[in-house]
């Protein structure tokens, strides 16, 4: 089945919104969208601590039905909204 560019864009926006809402609500405890830029590093900004990673992985697995492998737990995949969106897209495409 082919996905139209519009649908692809729509679903990516949905993923972005879900991820942003999760980070804003559960890590920054705010509903102010300006509190988080999509390129912000979670580690550098102190948004996530060592157990916070665990929470984030649970969220990704529950919300998007993916399985995060140990070797995938690297900042390149998980350390910003942009990185997470790209990671989810890669995982969903490969499944």
């Amino acid at each position: 089945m082919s996905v139209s560019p519009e649908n692809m864009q729509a679903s990516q926006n949905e993923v972005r919104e879900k991820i942003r809402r999760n980070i804003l609500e559960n890590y920054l405890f705010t509903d102010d969208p300006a509190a988080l830029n999509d390129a912000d590093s979670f580690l550098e900004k102190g948004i996530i601590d060592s157990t916070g990673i665990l929470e984030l992985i649970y969220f990704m697995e529950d919300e998007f039905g993916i399985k995060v492998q140990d070797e995938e737990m690297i900042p390149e995949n998980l350390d910003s909204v942009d990185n997470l969106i790209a990671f989810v897209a890669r995982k969903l495409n490969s499944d």
Partner: protein
Amino acid sequence: MVALQGGRGPGRDTLLAMASRLRHRGPDGEGVYLGARAGLAHRRLSIIDLESGDQPIHNEDRSVWVVFNGEIFNYLELRRELQAAGHRFYTRSDTEVIVHAYEAWGDDFVGHLNGQFAIALWDERAARLLLVRDRVGIVPLFYRKERQRLLFASEVKAMLAVTPESPRLHAPGLDQLMTFWSPVSPASLFEGVQEVSPGCMVVLEGDELRQRRYWDWEFPLRDDYLDGSEAALAEQLHELLVDATRLRLRSDVPVGAYLSGGLDSSVLVSLIHHHSDTPLRTFSIGFSDDAALDESDYQQEMVARLGTEHSRIQCRNRDIADRFVSAIWHTESPLLRTAPVPMGMLSGLVQAHGFKVVLTGEGADEVLGGYDIFKEAKIRRFWARDPDSGYRPALLKRLYPYLDLSRAQGLAYLKQFFGAGIDDPEQPGFSHLPRWNTTARCKEFFSDDLKGRLREDAMEVMGRSFPPEMARWHGFNRAQYIEAKSLMGGYLLCSQGDRMLMQHSVEGRFPFLDHRVIEFANRLHPKLKMKVLNEKYLLKKAMQRYLPERIVRRYKQPYRAPDIAAFFHEGQAPDYVEAMLAADAVRAAGYFDAGKVGRLVQKIRRGRAIGYKDNMALVGILSTQVWHELFVNGREGYFAPVVADRLGTQ
């Protein structure tokens, strides 16, 4: 002890009003000294000289008066020395040696004391007041300078009883607590109230008030360590610990001991068993709702080996919620963990069995190098020599195996969490930066109003408290200094120590914190404290003769208690917790952002809060809200229906 000093002389009623708030610290009696310019009051916990030891105590011509909380363990030796010099004693108490020692040696008398103490000494002739606190901060002592008077007391609540205006939160104190676990001494959580810092005396002469340090943790400059073989140094440590324990068994009432099942308390109980006639009576706590926190197996092994008569209390999650308010009443401080609460239950068990004194292993980790933070800092220093190494930071994975973090310990993340300050391992606070950065995340919940009351960065305040010579100490020793002065002095000995013991009128005694043990240990090379990553190496070597291999070899488990799980069960919390965290209550207190707190509570209800940050934030916010209600609003009665323990105010 409580007291005040004022221009016109204090009234008896004022003194008694203060003393009545501290009945839990001294249920056995009350005494007052009323002079023209000063007054002292005392609540007594009778342990030595039950018949004639009532305080205040005076010298031969009644010109020097003292009230004192704690113990002078070498009082028999000092008494003999002072008697030989012509001093006449009218009691058998340890208190009386203080007034004569002051006469004999002036302000330097404190250097002769081996003990744990808060002392208020009034020299009537010189119109001079001395407030003295023990070297490491075992016994609390606070003061408040007002225009016409100086108030001082073992706990702040005694001063609040006679202060007309409502207390206010000292905002920098909370900012520091939410970074280092306690305010940086001498600050407190109460505006206008300071503590006498450990190892210091405050002297009031006329209107002049000054603090003088008489003792501090000092470490050798590089390579200036004790000489001697490992075996010889282990033997010296053994002898010192035997003597420190022997002195701490001096008492006219029976003495018990805490037995956690860890190395330190096992060492201590073994020393009592092998070097005294004291019948072994031990006490411990277990956690019935979380097997990972429970150490009962190890406790039982030592009980069987030494044949102690042992009592154990089980702590359930709901016990912590039920006792949390009374714990805050006693700590007078917000908390970041609930761990003090079970310690209060344990002292309740001791009291229920008729004991007033327990020995514990507190201090061994700081003095002899036991904590994971020392290992962590050692690995980080090793890594800093080669910051691009992949292997060096991977050693951090060997730490914290008791935590279920395996999935989140990818190397990249370890580097991020523990890499703070890695470019400058010689900076004084290097060892503690990861912990402080993690703890400081709680401050994201601060309200704009509270942030507006902060003028200085907490880390800068901490940095200023370090002695200049620290830069020339070994990195391991710098970490020890910071740990002893911040977490131990500010939290473990206070909120988790003295306050939870005195909640049930129990005195704790800590042989590892005998200043002779500390001074000896501070001169040991760091490799004798931690050999590669083997913690408390010399202590194990000195004590292996007494202990089962399993206890010596077991991985060190830090004492922990459930945090969020203690309050929230299936998304619901007790009514008082819901009320304290409700948006209107949070806004009324003004310290935290009500919206953020609401989202944290929602996250907890959804079962999504599992990280350190959320656990610390919840306990920190809830305890600050309770603190505000108890001390600022003065509404002790509000909590009456939910407090399992008495607040100790009657």
